[in-house]
């Protein structure tokens, strides 16, 4: 029981992490209508930026944790957004209006490029930082097993939920969100209505990158170790989460992330850890067979 509870906490944290990255995915999807394969690598870049920022702070003897976190978040969001902007500008904008697969391929190219650029400039070695947010609360001191939840775990879960709500509100309720969706559905028409398509798309990419930056900082805080390869697996898992929840739906992305986190954690806890990814993808297939547009995705009814 205590064991299950602890695994639940593990699964929720992991799921929130996936969800956070998946929200960025889905948001960018909502505007270019194409999976941005480089998102995972933007996330990786942000984690490196966070590590550098933390290291600078450590060198400057900053000890206040809230202060440090705020500083790192701001720095990371700033630079990572710049990366998001630049990636869109160079690898996607020139491809507007060509086949849907063209940006997918340049995204894959971009992903390879970013990975290697970071490896070259920052080195192939893993980058650790000392634990930032240590400790937590003991939830249950069961005999022989204490269930605890770390501060950083709480931070991740809360951040994900808050950001999910905020961005959902933005996309569904504000004129800017409406313009974003319009850009995805018909860019020409949007511009005929006076929407600055380029700016809207650029800004969305920056927001997506900012979300990745938050995720990058969280990863750095929680796991304390980053390397140039973390974008890949995280990207694929988050992509899966986004699809499971229904691409384009932010609550869906979070739900998908949580679900995958829980499946992974419980499958590994009670069944065969080595087949946990098979379980994840298997459940994904099952869900999609029953609901072809994901859990919270709106079914695509095409009127003929």
């Amino acid at each position, binding site marked *: 029981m205590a*064991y299950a509870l*602890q*695994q639940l906490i*593990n*699964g929720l*944290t*992991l799921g929130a*992490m996936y969800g956070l990255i998946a929200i960025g995915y889905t948001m960018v999807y909502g505007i270019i209508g194409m999976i941005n394969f480089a998102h995972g690598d933007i996330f990786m870049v942000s984690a490196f930026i966070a590590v550098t920022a933390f290291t600078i702070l450590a060198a400057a003897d900053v000890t206040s944790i809230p202060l440090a976190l705020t500083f790192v978040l701001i720095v990371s969001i700033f630079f990572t957004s710049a990366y998001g902007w630049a990636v869109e500008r160079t690898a996607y904008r020139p491809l507007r209006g060509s086949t849907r697969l063209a940006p997918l391929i340049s995204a894959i190219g971009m992903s390879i490029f970013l990975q*290697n650029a970071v*490896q070259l400039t920052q*080195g*192939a*070695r*893993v980058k*650790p930082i*000392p*634990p930032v947010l*240590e400790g*937590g609360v003991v939830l249950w001191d069961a005999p*022989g*097993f*204490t269930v*605890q939840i*770390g501060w950083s775990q709480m931070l991740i879960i809360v951040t994900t939920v808050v950001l999910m709500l905020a961005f959902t509100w933005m996309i569904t309720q504000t004129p800017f969100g409406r313009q974003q969706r319009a850009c995805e559905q018909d860019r020409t028409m949007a511009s005929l209505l006076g929407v600055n398509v380029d700016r809207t798309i650029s800004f969305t990419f920056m927001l997506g990158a900012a979300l990745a930056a938050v995720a990058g900082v969280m*990863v750095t805080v929680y*796991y*304390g*170790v980053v*390397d140039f*390869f*973390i974008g*890949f*697996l*995280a990207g694929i898992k988050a992509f899966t989460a986004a699809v499971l929840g229904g691409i384009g739906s932010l609550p869906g992305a979070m739900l998908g992330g949580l679900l995958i986190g829980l499946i*992974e*954690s419980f499958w*590994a*806890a009670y069944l065969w*850890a*080595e087949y*946990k*990814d098979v379980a994840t993808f298997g459940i994904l297939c099952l869900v999609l067979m029953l609901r072809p547009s994901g859990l919270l995705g709106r079914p695509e009814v095409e009127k003929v």
Partner: protein
Amino acid sequence: DLPVAIAGPMTGQYASAGDQIRKGAEMAIADINARGGVLGEKLKLEVGDDACDPKQAVSVANTMVNKGIVFMHGHWCSSSTIPASEVYVEADIPMATVSTNPQVTERGLKNIFRIMGRDDQQGLVAGSYIADSFKGKKVAVVDDKSAYGKGLADEMAKAMEGKGLKPTLREAITAGEKDYSGLVTKLKQAGVEVMAYGGYHTEVALILRQAQAAGLQLTVMGGDTMTNSELVTAAGPAADNVMFTFSPDPRKNPDAAPVVEKFRAAKVEPEGYVLYAYAAMQLFEQAATAAKSTKYADLEKAMRGGTFKTVIGDLAFDAKGDQKAPGFVVYRWQGGKYDYAK
């Protein structure tokens, strides 16, 4: 010029190992050339990047054959070494490798010389050590599903069972992930205190960090990959709980002292595979000098027959090409350095 080559993961996930090999080989070549080269010719180093991908490894092998190399040090990943060696053997190129999978030398190829021990040997050493030192404790055997990791973990488990210690858990993880809290929780639940691990150091660092956060005291026993000092940087003080098997520390080899100094002066810590790469080049130098030729047949004969004094100690090979006295030793990290475990 005499072209000789190294090959390994210069890019990709394991690029830090490739880096070590390159640094070691570069220094060796510089030193050899400073001594006047081999048989009067200067050595020229070719570097091949296989990213630990078997297909690329074959491609690298072919490039190297074309460049007319006379000696290869590599590859690093067993899964690359195995297919690449088939190319080298056809092209009559001798190779020295640090790949530890038994298959590397079990296929009857004549051109392979392993300057490192085998996974079955190090698994035996590690497993027996666990069985002897942690009697009555609960031990989990975990691997990362890589050819190397799984092979090593299997051997450790076998050795432990041979000595009557049955692993409490047998688990596998996916390398490259970041979250091992699930595994940690499972270990904690099962009351495991010792983890025998087959895989790379990066995962061990994460597992240790997360174990510490979860309040689990874990001792880890790993293999040759744990020599990487990244482990210490990444795991912090928890690295002191890591033990591993490796050939006797070449840095302790008194003969190696000047070379070690040189590396340190050049800001390179001669850990892991650095000195092995250096030694591989020495092996070639000495074999060629002894054979007075760089022809395959002569080199092969010289290597198989001779004993070579290198920075990693004396090298001699058996019929399969395995090092005769690999002698694995158990180490333990302590305050950022590793040393023989008591």
